């Protein structure tokens, strides 16, 4: 026996309200979990990047220390080489000046240049030429000058001139 003219609709657990609720919460939970996953992923990336940066910084620091040491070595080399080159040039000028000091009438046969002394052997026509033309300039350069003469075969005089520069310490100790 039928009590209604329409057919009964099928009943389901998933009513429209439940479907709406599930849709809403699914979207919400998906967004929450995806945000969480993004944060976890970024966290990992940050850790990786931090470790890379730390390594690069260490490398850079080591490089800088190495380069600083190389720069210091080169500067030290330059300083010493400049000092040596200057010393050689000064020596060249000193020897040049020494030979320029000797007048044409006096002939040198031997010259020995030491750090604080100069020994000259040579021949001079007479003592006056030696005294005025060589000893006088030598006296202005050196602190102590000693000369000795002995006759040469041609009537000229052979001389030995020994000249010393007293260093500062020597002078102060003498005083």
């Amino acid at each position: 026996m039928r009590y209604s003219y329409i057919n009964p609709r099928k009943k389901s657990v998933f009513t429209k309200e439940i479907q709406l609720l599930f849709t809403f919460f699914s979207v919400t939970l998906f967004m929450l979990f995806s945000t969480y996953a993004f944060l976890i992923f970024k966290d990992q990336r940050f850790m990786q990047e931090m470790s890379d940066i730390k390594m690069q910084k260490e490398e850079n620091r080591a490089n800088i220390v190495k380069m600083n040491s190389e720069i210091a070595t080169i500067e030290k080399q330059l300083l010493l080489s400049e000092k040596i080159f200057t010393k050689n040039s000064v020596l060249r000028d000193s020897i040049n000046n020494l030979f320029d000091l000797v007048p044409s009438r006096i002939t040198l046969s031997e010259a020995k240049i030491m750090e604080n002394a100069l020994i000259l052997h040579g021949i001079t026509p007479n003592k006056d030429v030696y005294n005025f033309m060589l000893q006088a300039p030598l006296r202005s350069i050196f602190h102590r000058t000693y000369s000795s003469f002995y006759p040469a075969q041609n009537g000229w005089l052979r001389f030995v001139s020994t000249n010393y520069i007293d260093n500062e310490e020597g002078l102060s100790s003498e005083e």
Partner: protein
Amino acid sequence: MKSSFSRQNIYLFTLCLFLLVFVLVFSFAVLIPEGKDYRLKRGELKKENLELKQLSDFAIEKEVILQKLQDDNSHAIKAFENEFSSDKFKKQHQGFFSALSITKKSQLGDEDGFSVYEVNTTSEISSPKSFYDFLDAVNKSNWIIAVNFPIAFKRDGEMIDSSFTMRVYNNKDSNSSK
């Protein structure tokens, strides 16, 4: 009085309440602290990146200085690395002398962090000018050489016999490695 809520609605409401509580708890207990941590780490990474950039710039600056020093002074740098060779020295400088002989002496020790050894030289020159030219050439040679006292000149007919010592300076490590 009868309740107007059906059983289904009560289930629905309970589920809704449970999910809402879960969303709130998850957000406040996990997401927000994690987000704060993310912001902090991002700031820290930015700072570290800036420091790295400054350090890199400084390293590049140093490299440029080093490169310039090396380029400008390659002669002196190489000269300190070269070990003294009597034969090569003679070959390079015999033009200044009529005769040249070199005796290598034992090592003197260290000076300013460089190893130094002394070389005795006897030579024959036609005029002092040759010696001056030699002193100029020594500064451009393949070694760092200081001409040292005593220097002696002795006339021998038309020639001048000369004798002097030279000090050769080397890098400590380059000398020990050879």
